[in-house]
């Protein structure tokens, strides 16, 4: 088994601020993902990475940067936080791009 850790659990920032969310996995999975989930809505893919230093844009990548520093970690940066971005951000990993995804507990973003 393994686990996905997301930090912080709650993130509060000011409008226009640059904010970074972090994700770590110990599954030794190749592929990692970042999703945004607005309240009561479905998942939307922001970025994913199939290996260290790889980045692939999802449908919602505008306004975000990502970094896959090493196999076990995947960071997401909100480049200029906006109030309409308040949501839960979920990180996931899978053995490969087509495999079962395991999700972390999420980071809840609040923008003041």
């Amino acid at each position: 088994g393994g686990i996905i850790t997301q930090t912080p659990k709650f993130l509060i920032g000011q409008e226009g601020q640059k904010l970074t969310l972090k994700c770590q996995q110990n599954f030794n999975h190749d592929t990692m993902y970042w999703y945004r989930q607005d309240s009561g809505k479905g998942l939307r893919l922001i970025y994913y990475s199939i290996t260290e230093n790889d980045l692939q844009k999802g449908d919602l990548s505008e306004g975000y940067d990502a970094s896959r520093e090493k196999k076990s970690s995947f960071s997401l940066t909100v480049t200029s936080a906006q109030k309409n971005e308040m949501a839960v951000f979920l990180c996931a990993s899978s053995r490969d791009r087509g495999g079962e995804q395991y999700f972390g507990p999420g980071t809840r973003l609040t923008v003041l």
Partner: protein
Amino acid sequence: GDSVTQTEGLVTLTEGLPVMLNCTYQSTYSPFLFWYVQHLNEAPKLLLKSFTDNKRPEHQGFHATLHKSSSSFHLQKSSAQLSDSALYYCVNTGYQNFYFGKGTSLTVIP
């Protein structure tokens, strides 16, 4: 191109009635479909995945059959339970990418 479409929005059922959540897909190559479930304040987790050998996956009373003729992978359960209330996602893993459906919110009432 590859895609997935599922019953959108809210589905409300009375406990004990059958559940059927629709999922259809478009896939350039052999499809590989998943159903994920997300309970309130929890992370999504895998419920079912399709097999390549036409076996019918089952878990927690739910089952889904991949029908290539109709491009469908509908989620079914014979009798809904209150604990089945959750958000359900159908996912299609295509050749180059993967596609999450928009999610179906199932509410089971007594």
